[in-house]
């Protein structure tokens, strides 16, 4: 469904991603692992158009994505929950969620859609009038995911959703991701440092190192891979 073909990505002069290729199949949950600075976030940003590859192509269902305007990526069904949540801090929870449905075609249906999000996160209904910047870290993460879900994406990309969250919240969020994948059939591309948990819930996984894929395979198999154990699982 989503296919990355040999992309090179730069920040200014510095090359961060080197000839990276991988594919994501419909309904799969993919975990993208890698140490710090490996280029995981950069990969997601490139898919969602915030960065442009200097070389290579990105295809969604055979349609080229890397040349369209970054703001129209979401209309192709790809939603991105960025690293660090990136809410609109001076806007209310509800306004934040509504902006997830900014796209013209779905803007009018936003009121209905938001009800669905409140069902997933009853906590947010309680706080819909609160400014997003004043929420706790966990609540902010819920808004970020909720906002991404507003556009009814086919692919959801999550960048370290567990970062800095209390263990019970992490548990909740991981549960939710699984539910979206299993019950709603949403394709998920998950970037996580918490490799144990990520491998636990995903189907397939790629391991990234300095902008290249060094390893890939079924999540269960990778969990037992000696190298992965040493380098990422800390065992």
């Amino acid at each position: 469904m989503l296919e990355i073909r040999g992309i090179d990505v730069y920040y200014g002069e510095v090359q961060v991603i080197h000839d990276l290729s991988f594919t994501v199949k419909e309904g799969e949950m993919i975990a993208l692992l890698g140490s710090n600075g490996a280029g995981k976030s950069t990969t997601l940003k490139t898919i969602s158009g915030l960065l442009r590859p200097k070389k290579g192509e990105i295809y969604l269902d055979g349609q080229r994505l890397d040349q369209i305007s970054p703001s129209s990526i979401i209309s192709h069904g790809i939603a991105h929950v960025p690293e660090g949540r990136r809410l609109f801090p001076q806007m209310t929870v509800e306004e934040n969620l509504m902006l997830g449905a900014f796209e013209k075609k779905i803007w009018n249906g936003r009121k209905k859609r938001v009800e669905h999000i409140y069902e997933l996160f009853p906590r947010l209904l309680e706080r819909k009038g609160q400014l997003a910047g004043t929420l706790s870290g966990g609540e902010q993460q819920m808004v970020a995911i909720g906002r991404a879900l507003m556009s009814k994406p086919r692919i959801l990309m999550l960048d370290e959703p567990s970062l800095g969250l209390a263990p019970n919240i992490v548990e909740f969020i991981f549960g939710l991701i699984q539910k979206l994948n299993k019950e709603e059939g949403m394709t998920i591309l998950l970037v996580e440092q918490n490799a144990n948990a990520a491998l636990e819930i995903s189907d397939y996984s790629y391991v990234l190192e300095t902008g290249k894929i060094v390893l890939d395979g079924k999540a269960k198999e990778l969990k037992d891979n000696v190298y992965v154990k040493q380098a990422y699982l800390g065992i």
Partner: protein
Amino acid sequence: MNNESVLQVNTVSKRFGGLQALKDVKFDLAPNEILGLIGPNGAGKTTLFNVIAGVFKPDSGSILYQNKDVTKFRPDKRCKIGIARTFQITKPFNNMNLVDNVSVGAYFGKQHTSISSARKRAEEILDFVGMGDLLDVEAKNLSIGNRKKLELARALATEPEVLLLDEVIGGLTPTEGNEVVEIIKKIKQSGVSIIMIEHVMKAVMGVSDRMIVLNYGQILAEGTPKEIAENPQVIEAYLGGVKHA
């Protein structure tokens, strides 16, 4: 009072407008101890660090460092007498290279006599945290994980007695996290007392001598990692169902 402790937090309260961020928080830090500080998001952990480091004045209560009241000291003064901290949201000096970043701590923390000796020290410390090959890199080019290590290196460079670590492990892979844990252990061995905020239970529980759980600005529980891990209130408010430690 307890002459044994290097740092005393004395019934500190802090309010932001309508929000009571800290309420009568009181504890001691023993010399050469690692104290793990955990609690839900927004519980007030970082705020507590800010009060100890002098960024916020508490509304009431006081901070005693080596039995001296330092509540009125500015942050730079506190650093000079031996209280160093890292920032949860990292604040690197973006347009300076790593050596200069760390030299600031080395020179101004415990006044090195010359810039060059401060630089030398900075390089040693960068090496120590495993960034010896990045000396000339400008800090803006670091990934999150390395930024956290840089925070740690800068704080270390001030040669503190008390080190406040705010989520230095979160965001690292477990393997990298283990490395940092090793570094923290070494720092402890050199005689430094540490308070460590962390959501990665495996790491804090493994390294802490003692733990405090903050919830809604108040201390919810205090004890050894084992006691904390089994405390039902803590499980309810913070840990959830997964097994830890």
